[in-house]
């Protein structure tokens, strides 16, 4: 299946290679570099590149290209999903998945890759198992290691791999037993010029941080489970109980994990928390344009909108912007042509407004298109879909865990067309 993996940074330096079968020369990456050059933007590199003898399947994450080499037929999503899993594992281990952290932890990275695939077929991808095999580095441990020369390879043999609940390691013990759940919802929406919703849907995830001793068996139930008709679960969740009772019953992995994600589709009515009044125009005569944006609250369910940011990708001809913001700060980057207006908290009494003129490259024709606005926002303690967790029950263990649920709504791909 997966033959080799190359990690390549944005500048085109190949800084790590790993082969699971016989060695494939790194010159195979030349095909990738060619495609990379053609694509201009890193986003536009085709995920699957065909070369005379191999296929290159790549993903782009955190400014690193993960390029895998395939020789025979394999479902491309299989490889893509796996590569993302690799990136997530790095993130899990080192806090972030960047070129520097990978270079700093080269040996651990290599050991991880060795365990994750066997002959190109995934072997251990669950973070709980991997952590039993190879302990993640911590500052303390790396200090102790340098002094004592001890290792970060687990000396106990991983039993998790043998059990039928591979996602949970055995013998977990905590003094404080706690389970936290974050319900995070993102609104994906497209609003048109007049402010009407072209399309809106909600993407929700429930992230969990479970630190419970022993083998707890948890059941999470909702006040209004009927909202959820399109869900996907972590493998620990029992499908059948969801099908029959609409409760989420599971033996959790230890630590942080994503319990489920759900999707409330465009068919349902989605509340849009803010409205945007905007007017961006470029004059036919003279190299200038005007910009006027006002943001106001719409359906916020009585909560405050925070961390409000408006981002505008300006046309190429816009040289600079001289604007006046009644609230927050704005910044125009003439190189990337991105205007960012960081508003902060939305005050319903005094609506924030950004107004002023844009100067264009002289001589260039007036831009055809109007830039669209991307909105970013955050509402604490609210799940915009109305989803509410009813209760969390624990079976199988006797202590009383500390439980908590947090709700937050964010803007996902929230776009206003102009």
């Amino acid at each position, binding site marked *: 299946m997966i033959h080799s993996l190359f990690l390549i940074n944005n500048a085109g330096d190949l800084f790590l290679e790993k082969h699971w079968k016989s060695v494939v020369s790194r010159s195979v990456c030349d095909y990738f570099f060619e495609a990379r050059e053609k694509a201009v933007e890193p986003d536009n590199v085709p995920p699957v590149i065909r070369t005379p003898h191999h296929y290159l399947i790549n993903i782009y994450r955190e400014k690193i290209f993960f390029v895998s080499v395939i*020789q025979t037929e394999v479902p491309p999503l299989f490889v893509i999903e796996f590569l993302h899993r690799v990136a997530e594992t790095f993130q899990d281990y080192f806090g972030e998945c960047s070129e520097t952290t990978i270079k700093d932890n080269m040996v651990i990275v290599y050991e991880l890759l060795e365990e994750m695939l066997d002959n190109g077929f995934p072997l251990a991808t669950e973070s709980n198992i991997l952590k039993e095999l190879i302990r993640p580095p911590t500052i303390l441990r790396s200090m102790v290691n340098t002094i004592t020369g001890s290792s970060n390879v687990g000396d106990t043999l991983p039993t998790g791999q043998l059990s039928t*609940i591979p996602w949970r390691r055995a013998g977990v013990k905590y003094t404080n037993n706690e389970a936290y759940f974050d319900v995070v919802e993102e609104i994906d929406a497209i609003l048109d010029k007049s402010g009407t919703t072209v399309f809106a849907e909600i993407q929700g995830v429930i992230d969990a941080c479970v630190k419970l001793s022993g083998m707890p068996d948890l059941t999470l139930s909702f006040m209004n489970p009927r909202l959820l008709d399109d869900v996907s679960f972590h493998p620990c969740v029992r499908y059948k109980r969801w099908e029959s009772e609409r409760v989420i019953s599971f033996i959790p992995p230890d630590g942080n994990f994503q319990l489920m994600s759900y999707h409330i589709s465009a068919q349902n009515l989605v509340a849009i928390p803010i409205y945007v009044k905007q007017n961006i125009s470029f004059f036919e005569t003279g190299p200038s344009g005007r910009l006027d944006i006002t943001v106001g609250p719409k359906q916020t369910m009585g909560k405050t909108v925070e961390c409000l940011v408006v981002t505008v990708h300006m046309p190429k001809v816009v040289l600079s912007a001289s604007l006046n913001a009644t609230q927050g700060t704005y910044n125009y980057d003439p190189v990337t042509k991105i205007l960012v207006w960081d508003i902060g908290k939305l005050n319903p009494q005094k609506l924030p407004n950004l107004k002023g003129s844009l100067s264009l490259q002289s001589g260039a024709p007036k831009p*055809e298109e109007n830039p669209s606005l991307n909105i970013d926002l955050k509402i604490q303690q609210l799940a915009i879909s109305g989803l509410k967790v009813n209760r969390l029950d624990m079976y199988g263990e006797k202590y009383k865990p500390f439980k908590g649920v947090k709700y937050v709504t964010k803007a996902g791909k929230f776009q206003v067309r102009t």
Partner: protein
Amino acid sequence: MSASSAFSDEKGGSASEPEYGHDPASGGIFSSDYKRHDDLKEMLDSNKDSLKLEAMKRIVAMIARGKNASDLFPAVVKNVACKNIEVKKLVYVYLVRYAEEQQDLALLSISTFQRGLKDPNQLIRASALRVLSSIRVTIIVPIMMLAIKEAASDMSPYVRKTAAHAIPKLHSLDPEQKDQLIEVIEKLLADKTTLVAGSVVMAFEEVCPDRIDLIHKNYRKLCNLLIDVEEWGQVVIINMLTRYARTQFLNPNINESLLEESSDKAFYASDDEEDEDKKAEVATLAKRKPYVMDPDHRLLLRNTKPLLQSRNAAVVMAVAQLYFHLAPKAEVGIIAKALVRLMRSHSEVQYVVLQNVATMTIKRRGMFEPYLKSFYIRSTDPTQIKILKLEVLTNLANETNISTILREFQTYIKSMDKDFVAASIQAIGRCATNIGEVRDTCLNGLVQLLSNRDELVVAESVVVIKKLLQMQPEQHSDIIKHMAKLIDNIQVPMARASILWLIGEYCEHVPKIAPDVLRKMAKTFNNEEDIVKLQIINLAAKLYLTNSKQTKLLTQYVLNLAKYDQNYDIRDRARFIRQLIVPTDKSGALNKYAKKLFLALKPAPILESPFKDRDHFQLGSLSHLLNAKAGGYQELPDWPESAPDPSVRNVEIPEWSKCTSRKDRKEKKVEKPFYSDSEGESGPTESADSESDTGSGSESASASDESGSGSESEESGEETESEEEEEDEEKEKKRKKRLDKTKAKKPAEESAESEQSSGTEDRKRGRKAVKNQKSASESESESESSESEDESEEEESEEESESDTDIRKKKTPVSKQPPKQSKKESKKETQEMSLLDLDDFEPAPASAPVTPVNFLSSSLVSDLEGLSLTDTILAPTTIAPSGLIKMYELLHRITGEGLAVEYCFSRQPFSPEPNMVAVQIQFTNNTNSETKNLHIEEPRMQSGMRIREFAEIDMLAAGESVTVVMGIDFCDSTQAANFQLCTHTRKFFVSIQPPVGELMTPAFLTENDFKKEQGKLMGMNEISEKLTLGEKCVNEHVIVERVTATANLSRVPCGSDKECRFAGKTVSSGCLVLVTVTTKEGGAAQLTVNCEKMVIGTMLVKDMMQALSQ
């Protein structure tokens, strides 16, 4: 790469950054390159692990960077047997990387792995096999083959999984081993653990994807296990099953697809044809039987459906393609929602999903129509995603939604991304050709775009307009005129060429403008692009034919220019056209037809999706994505005309079915005494006996056992022996008493005879019972077919084989040895299942199933269901007789102030944690008031020991008793577990001390395995004692019984009747415990215990001696 070049490589790097690892000192200390390697060698040769580790880390970092470190091979390989785990692991990494280049030296390490393969720890066995098989050295192929074969029958499913992984490695190293490997695959495919399933199917796909016949018997099992297999395995299995189903089942859409075709034809075909076609179709439709879906086909669809909710995009895609290729049309819709959900994922995932959605939308547009808006494009999407979304939107367009889609497209045209705008314009063109109603609207819109400032937009519009106009040129001469004016401004060659072609083609519609355009073009001919030049020549030729008066000279001029063009295509074209159109004396017959040739009516182009014919590739595959066959791609076969025999899937494994059928036979007779309340032959005395002893449940079990073996006794002696073993395991004490009596007459053959008599008596009643049984099984199978998903697959197959029983009955006695073995095997496997399949366990239920009750259910249920997966059912068949279970007192009635507590070792696997010993505790409340909140507190144990408490008992009413199960990990020691037993009022200190025999669980070995394992446990690990057997230990039965009563072991088949062998493994660490009792003349005997843990061995010997000499 040679070593010297590696050095120079490194030299470059070392200047700028510390070269190896993250030790900042390394750069400074080892400044010279040549010394550096010497130094690494030195470090590797030292006897400090920390130095070795440091060296290995640097070497691995070199490998990771792609630097050559092969010259260190000898120094590294020396450390392969290093004690330090991390060093070892890094050495493995190095070895696997360079073994191929240094084959001879690599051989030095092989013996280490061979030793590892024999290690008692399954994880070490597995990792040894993993590394051994990763070393790509051809010489060791036979060793690898041997190791794989051995590992494939290992007890540990994890080792078997590793064996499955090793198969493709060996296959790629030496394809000649294929046949042998297929045998191993076949064996592993029959494995029943979820751990192995994914890996073996992967091996199957790589080694022998065409051997679909291997799947038959495992099909249902795979379907049923699927949901519990790890996600990567799921993908592979689903893809394989899709192909399998395509060869085995009928097309569920067979009737619809016919109708579809006919409607398609009605649309395109001319009328007369259509009539005939219809008649033919009606005939075929009538001929065809109504379609009924194969239940196995249904099973697959049903069991894959929940996986649409997997978090893994690859799994969702695999299920989606399975539904697309296999499901009836009405059911395919459910995949749309899941696929749309995937679109939120990473852009690479989106890319692949959209490619597949695009293909699906062509065939089944309706499916995605409700999700139209999910494909709307954001300005921030990467271009390749935008273009794919556009493709999907275009495919989804129909009369009802076209207006919304066009409005959407309109906004796209304003985008900054020019490639995307061009694609949008093409999309509009396609919508216009496909949907007649909006053609004019689209055309108008496109014409407006002609005045766009961006040339690319205009050019693309021109090209699209050209295609649209070709459909109905008469009505649009004004557009053509407008376009003719554009020729002055547009510079994009493709657009210019399109305009010229358009004018030439429809020059009758614009008779005045056309010659003028030609005039302009003749002027600029030399500066045009080739593609435009060709069109100029075409235009000239067409005008010459229609309007030669005005254009004759111009044409001549253009042709002359073309004659001396640099491009040979253009020169050729000019020569060719001149010959055709300009009449000369030599010109041939073609001249007459020139007009027909040039101005023939050309069919309008059909604007098709590039995804049109992609669905002949299996969706979700690499080949589909590339629209070209990738290496190793397996074609998705067409549906068969008529379904192949579905019964191939009924059979489990040939031997298995025999074994099950044997069971059935037994069961028929067994059934009777059970239902008839075990009267008759087993006698009133016995039932009275048993009642006094263990209660009716276990009694009926014993009765059924007897009659079961009775029925079997008609088979040959060898058979009887194997039967006896079973009895031994399952029999109870009082049964022995009875045997002893009969034995007084004919000690040698007693069991066979007594049972035979019971058998014959039984058989008389048996006939009636068979009928009962049959109806019972029928009702059973009905409930089965009512889609109760939980039913394990074995039950089903059992059911089917049951109906065939009568036929098989006759066949059964043909071979004696294999069924016996297979029985053992099946037991072994199922037992392991029970240890590992914890999915459905209810954690410490308040009143856990009590063994005696289980036992009752076992005879009933296991007979009905045969080899089932659930451990409660299985356990009893593998576990020593429950009648032998001794109760121990934990708390006396008096000290407990009325609360009496007893415990016993139930010998059930403790399902929440397999390495704990299950202790069954019975509370009896002898007071007059209720006791509340019974629970455990403050366990005080030796280090390492763990306890898993039973769930708190809220209330125990007066006079009641309740039984719970708790688990204790004794760490293979006989140290007592101390804890407090608390009620709502009092606390009692209690302790549980296990007899050594309870610290083990039965292990199932074949005779050969036994000998092999015994061979490994010689010397210090072997304890041998001579003893004199007690008076009652006169025959094998008694010995077996005594041994199994003392320790939780299982019997190992053995050829000699002088020897009894038993095997087990300790619960916590899984060390094997092997016991051999050899009887000699005159009651003398030798007891041998082999166990890695000497303490356990010694204690076990002591206990055994005591038990046997009584």
